[in-house]
């Protein structure tokens, strides 16, 4: 899904540049991130992180950002992972009650 062009290009670029600074990676990686965010949207980018071709190192860092966002209550985890977390909590809770 290509996001509407009226969403400012510079905001996507800013987001990816900040990630580039955070990860200390080259500009080609930053550009790749920028393209992926623009084509998918910010939330869907993190939800579909596994579907992009990032190196293991970059993926790990993007996943770390996703964990922070998830911790802050953002819906950035794929359904599968969210269900997994819920199941783990529910089973722990159930076990404690017994």
């Amino acid at each position, binding site marked *: 899904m290509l996001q509407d062009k009226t969403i400012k290009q510079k905001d996507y670029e800013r987001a990816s540049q*900040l990630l580039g600074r955070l990860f200390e990676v080259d500009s080609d990686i930053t550009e790749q991130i920028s393209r992926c965010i623009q084509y998918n949207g910010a939330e869907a980018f993190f939800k579909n992180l596994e579907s992009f071709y990032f190196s293991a190192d970059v993926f790990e860092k993007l*996943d770390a950002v996703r964990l922070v966002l998830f911790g802050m209550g953002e819906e950035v985890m794929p359904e599968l992972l969210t269900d997994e977390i819920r199941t783990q909590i529910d089973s722990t809770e159930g076990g404690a009650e017994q």
Partner: protein
Amino acid sequence: MKKKYDEAYASSFIKGLTRLTGISESKLKKYAAENNLFNVLEHPNIIEPNKQQLEKIHVLNEFISTYKLLKLQEKENKIVLNSSTVAGEYFVSLLGGIKDKEKFMAAFLDSGNNIIETRTLSEGSIGEAVVYPRMILKAALDCDCKSIILAHNHPGGSLNPSIQDRDITEKLVSIFAPLQISVIDHIIVANINYYSMAEKGNIPLPSPKSISYDAVPLSDGKIVGEETMGFNAGTLDKDDLDMDSMYFFEQDGEEEEEWQI
């Protein structure tokens, strides 16, 4: 059950932050045991990070603000600032991460409170920015807006409006009132918090005496208490205006000449 979910969120947050900044999990867990974990982003010095870790937290904060802004833009593809809360959060997303300079912005809105355009109108040093009313006036007329929300950040962290913040608001309210353009709020952003003058009932009424196009320096140093601000809270009442003494711009033609104030 809720506690378990909270723990899962906190655990994710800690894992992610550790991977990104190198701050140890045990340090974060120790802090989280007795405090609100998210203070770490808002007031990173409380966990005594080294210089590099502190820089990473600042960049992460900026990214989170940008992420929220993008999400907001993508959601409806237009942003409606229909309450001080939405306006506050919107400007926190734009100004929240800025620690090294004072930045003055304005959102120009249509009759449905949709943003026509948001512009940065001044960028200054850490404690001061100079605002030019003429520049704001020109931007407002260019986009044919119906109302304006002003915003700037206080890099020093204070949420209280300064004397200059009050002055510029009063000046701009007074400049725009005869043009039927309302200055509906002035948001002050400090860290990831905001202060809304409208929410506090502190948007001044227009006063012909306040009309001046001189540049106004903003500073977060000289703070005024709310009780001494002297704002006339309330809505605009045209009867309160001495309209004859105000300067009216022509709607059509010879616009360039009208800028010679």
